[in-house]
């Protein structure tokens, strides 16, 4: 069975496309507001010293997300070669 990858699986430098958002409630709204809707290209640009949170480039802005939140953002076409 193919594993569902989430934004949390991205390593710095890797890009992917958002396939769906599992978060609910106000965080869902917040993430959507930041432009994290389906089909958005996201790049992981770094991790904080403790490894969590990580920073993502979304529509030209860099946003820090905790792994608890980023693992609810499913991705497809995770591809390091294009990064």
């Amino acid at each position: 069975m193919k594993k569902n990858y989430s934004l949390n699986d991205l390593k710095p430098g890797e890009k992917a496309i958002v396939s769906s958002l599992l978060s609910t409630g106000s965080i869902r709204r917040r993430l959507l507001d930041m432009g994290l809707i389906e089909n958005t290209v996201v790049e992981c640009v770094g991790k904080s010293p403790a490894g969590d949170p990580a920073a993502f480039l979304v529509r030209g802005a860099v946003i820090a997300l905790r792994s608890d939140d980023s693992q609810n953002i499913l991705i497809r076409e995770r591809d390091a070669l294009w990064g």
Partner: protein
Amino acid sequence: MGLSYRSTGLSAVDSGLWIQKRKESDRVIALAGNPNVGKSTIFNGLTGMNQHTGNWPGKTVSCAQGYFEWEQKGYIFVDIPGTYSLLAHSAEEEVARNFICFQDPDGVVVVCDATCLERNLNLVLQIMEITGRVIVCVNLMDEAARKGLSVDLKKLEERLQVPVVGTIGQKTESRHELAKALAFFENRDAKAPLTLRYSEPVEKALAQLEPVVALAVKGKMNSRFVALRLLDPDESLFSELKAYLGEDLFNNPLIQKALWDAKETLKQAGISRTDLRDQIVSSLVTTAERYCEGVVTVQKEGGAKRDRKIDRFLTGRKTGYPVMLLLLLLIFWLTISGANLPSSLLSKGLFWIEGRLSELFYALGAPNWLHDVCVLGIYRVLSWVVSAMLPPMAIFFPLFTLLEDVGYLPRVAYNLDHAFQRCHACGKQSLSMCMGFGCNAAGVVGARIIDSPRERLIAILTNNFVPCNGRFPTIISILTMFFVAAGSGIFSTLWSALLLTGVIILGIFFTFLVSAFLSKTLLKGEASSFTLELPPYRRPQVGKIIVRSLLDRTLFVLGRAVAVAAPAGLLIWILANVSVGGDTLLSHIAAFLDPFAQLLGLDGVILIAFLLGLPANEIVLPLIIMAYLADGSLTEMESIWEMKALFVANGWTAVTAINVILFSLFHWPCSTTLITIYKETKSVKWTLLSFFLPTGIGMLCCACINGVAGFFQ
């Protein structure tokens, strides 16, 4: 860290906004935008005010207003907090939304960041759904150019059909461009609100609902906007709406009926409330994407590479924490070593003036008591406060502002978030903590940037654990006196800075400890989600930083200290000179407090000074000196070593010094901070807790250290 004339001290207490028109024809303009897009810079440029600017999201947490005149027309600009969205998540976003929705401004200038225009357009579109009276100001054009982006403003203007102005925040020409565009607001009906199309079932539901809503709101608001919100109700919005319309829409029978029909339509189409929300937001995001296409073009790739490189260093696994500590140490070292000389010169100068003042009083034949009250009481405390505080503040504030301007503070929050997460708190707490270094009251207000009420309360209650600028001089002086060898060589100042950094780290450690404790007990809960924007690094405007931080912060904070120091100096002089039953009032009170104070390794006088220092921590050390001097014969104190001699003569040991430093770090917040906490939490209970929590910890620490020290003696 929004420490400015209006954000520190009592002005930090946000008591709601009252629009003050100078003449009837004045137009009220809201200045909106995403966080951290340079709104405050534009606001200051237009109105000539000192709203503090800095490079991190969420700096403006309440509304400020300023006046601007252009071609004989008056405009009142209201700087509202930066928001990503009008569907409020946090207290500051609610403030912004309510202003645009319910204050009915004559126009809204939406400031956007040219370097990420697409996401910024999301807010522009949301505002345009409410009102068509919008001017889009694309700011940071220079930043975009540096990143190799070009923005086609004409094309954007054609698509949005409202004026679009490109600006570079601090430039005069930009201001004029924007001022010219304001003419658009002359006609209140120049442009109808924007209508975004949703899927067919949603449109059908809206068609059922909108006509009855239009009847109820009577043109006071955009009916399509209200209808859309009725389908996805937000409690806080509707309580405001109820007050605004004087009617609860949910109690309107016509609306109840239409709403039921509309919801039925959605249900039949299989659209849940979450689906509806997603559709509303997605439609905004895709519209923004469409509008942006071809407007922003990348001229050269890799413009943001430099930022990522800096980030790899400042937030790297190996470098992140050490760099943070070194920067803290460096700032303290520069402050301490730079302040030494001016402090002693200032103190010499002020004491020289004291001598001349005395001569003047004698020459005028003023009575002795008057001389003593004015010169030995009020003036002496004032000069202590000024000479001890002015030089360190004049160095510390600009340095801190520099870090802020460059964009380092959000990286601190990013680095420390993991630790806060472990404490079930929010990483943005580091931002309010940083503000606390300048002024705890400002830090408490700054906690508004935290979404979750529980985590915000934790940030408010623990803000006092970092020492504010009023406490730095006390801590630095005592550290230097008792733990640094005499001399002013590079090693002794470096050692002072190291010790001070240690004290600050202790404060931060307790911030974590208490946050975790509160999360497990009174404010039980899991860490909520966390999103934080890491803005691009910006070249700081050094000249401006120095002027602003000197005028704005340093002089203001000093002014406040002086205002409190004068009456406190008077009071302590009276206490020290009015005798009852052979002893002065001061010694009576000191004797009364002494047994308890001794338990803490302090003495009665020190405790009195802390109590009298409630209005401002700056005066604690001067009060201690005053009180000791009142009985002794020492009259002049030109160096810190004479001060030490005075303390030692009054029974101080290294243990006393440690305890005074600890108690200065952990005791009740100043009265301004307490008032601010009450205003922010609207609860006596939390205000009392914010008083007793640090006090209790401080007393416990002091008593322990005193006990242990006694054991070894």
